[in-house]
């Protein structure tokens, strides 16, 4: 009764891979021509938050951990990159790498402290540590308090390509984003990623199969923190500014919002969510504090109407066509 039906499963793969390739190709093409159609700084802002949300999504979507303190990685890497580029004159790629590594280091410490806790306690600890890091940022002299680090030079990529040119900067940001997203895709679809998903689905069962789940969670946490840092680093170069906004708990909340709106546990959901939120903020900016309320209303509507988020809703439709979104 069993064996013959197995063959049916072999129909998809080849077709699926090529459709997937076309889908990704189209997205890449859109990303490459977008700056000719849309204001590039807006696009870059969206990409930075998209990367931040994608990194956050690794934890929430694939490990089931809700961090409420990811702004500390985002914001602190922004400071580090800004400082390194402005005061030490490091080239942008090195400054961004430095920000990323520092975020990974912070992630190791914070993760080690937080991952033994479950659910709301995990969220509380990450929030508490993020608040602590916010006050350090407020007090530390090199961050320049309320002013932030201003006039950060974008510099020359590899010492050659002038990033003060907006298009060059855009392609740099887009390149970082695309690489990081591919890396996250690989992590999620790796032997390690399989274990993460198993832990997310049923942690006690994963333990009973012999997995030391805390180690897997910690590594995922470090990767997530590091890439959140990359996002913050790049953002500080885009806006030539590192400020308290990015370490504030608002930023931690925003990234949760973006991820949920776009579709938690999907590859492109965080990007969609990030652009939605950034668009709302930009186009309704004149309304001042009403933006927050509009965001809240949209969030409530989305949660009620489609719980799985934008991409989460589209997903079954795309999957039938051999596309994993």
């Amino acid at each position, binding site marked *: 009764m069993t064996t013959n039906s197995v063959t049916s499963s072999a129909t998809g793969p080849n077709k699926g891979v090529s459709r997937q390739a076309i889908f990704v190709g189209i997205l890449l093409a859109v990303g490459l021509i977008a700056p000719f159609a849309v204001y590039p700084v807006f696009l870059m802002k969206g990409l930075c938050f998209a990367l931040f949300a994608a990194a956050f999504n690794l934890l929430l979507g694939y490990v089931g951990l809700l961090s409420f303190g990811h702004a500390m990685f985002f914001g602190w890497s922004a400071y580090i990159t800004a400082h390194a580029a402005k005061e030490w004159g490091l080239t942008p790629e090195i400054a961004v790498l430095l920000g990323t590594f520092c975020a990974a280091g912070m992630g190791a410490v914070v993760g080690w402290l937080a991952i033994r806790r479950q659910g709301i306690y995990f969220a509380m600890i990450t929030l508490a540590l993020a608040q602590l890091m916010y006050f350090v940022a407020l007090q530390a002299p090199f961050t320049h308090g309320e002013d932030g680090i201003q006039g950060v030079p974008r510099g020359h990529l590899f010492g050659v390509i002038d990033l003060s040119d907006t298009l060059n900067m855009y392609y740099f940001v887009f390149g970082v984003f695309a690489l990081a997203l591919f890396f996250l895709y*690989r992590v999620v679809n790796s*032997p390690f990623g*399989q274990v993460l998903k198993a832990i*997310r689905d049923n942690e*006690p*069962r994963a333990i009973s*199969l012999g997995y*030391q789940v805390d180690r897997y969670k910690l590594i995922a946490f470090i990767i997530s923190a590091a890439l959140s840092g990359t996002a913050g680093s790049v953002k500080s170069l885009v806006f030539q500014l590192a400020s308290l906004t990015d370490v504030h708990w608002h930023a931690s909340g925003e990234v949760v919002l973006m991820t949920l709106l776009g579709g938690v546990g999907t590859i492109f959901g965080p990007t969609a969510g990030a652009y939605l939120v950034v668009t709302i903020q930009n186009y309704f900016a004149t309304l001042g504090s009403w933006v927050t309320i509009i965001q809240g209303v949209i969030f409530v509507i989305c949660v009620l109407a489609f719980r799985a988020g934008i991409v989460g809703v589209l997903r079954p439709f795309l999957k039938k066509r051999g596309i994993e979104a």
Partner: protein
Amino acid sequence: MADDYIVETKNLTKEFKGFVAVSDVNLKVKRHTIHALIGPNGAGKTTCFNLITKFLPLSRGTILLNGRDITNTAPADIAQLGMVRSFQISAVFGHLTALENVRVALQRKLGTSFHFWKSDTSLAELNDRAEQLLEDVGVLEYRDIPAGELSYGRKRALEIATTLALEPEMLLLDEPMAGMGTEDVARTAELIRRVSKDRTILMVEHNLSVVADLSDTITVLKLGKVLAEGPYSEISQNPEVIEAYMGHGVGSHA
């Protein structure tokens, strides 16, 4: 002679805020036998499992596995020592396919479980073994279905396949047949009998005809204490057991 016993507990005790759920249980599970743990609801059977596999810290007592003291061993390490448990509530990885569920158990020994830079297509070498395990429990045709979408009985079967993937010496099955239809019960009983050939099984089961059929030894728990122990023929005649737990149903079976 201690080697005859694969698992031994001494004065196993668990208190929850003053309430004693398991009290001085001395359990000896003989190698290559099927040992059943029965008792009314709330008797402490699942708690015993949680203690033996270290999912809960003990209040008192010691646990030996193959003569080795595992009282302070971490639960993940227990699995690596060859003792794997299942759960009373079906425990599958709901978003992973049936095949992936089994593969998660198989992949640990590949030693690549921390490799986040590698494609998961590298796990395909485990597919044959995983399919064979799925076939053994009769769910191969659901290979590519997310486990969360399977019926309850099939989830339980998948769970057993996943457990067997580790080739454990010692299996702890917590009500493996709860919620199954008669056909599935019969097949699962057969499967348990088959896999018990070179393994040891400790199982909790409410289905008494299954228990009578399968088990070599039965331990009856009541209110956290061992009430009686022995083969079914003895247990079913024990007036205390009849009165305290099984009532009328027992004697009639044997």
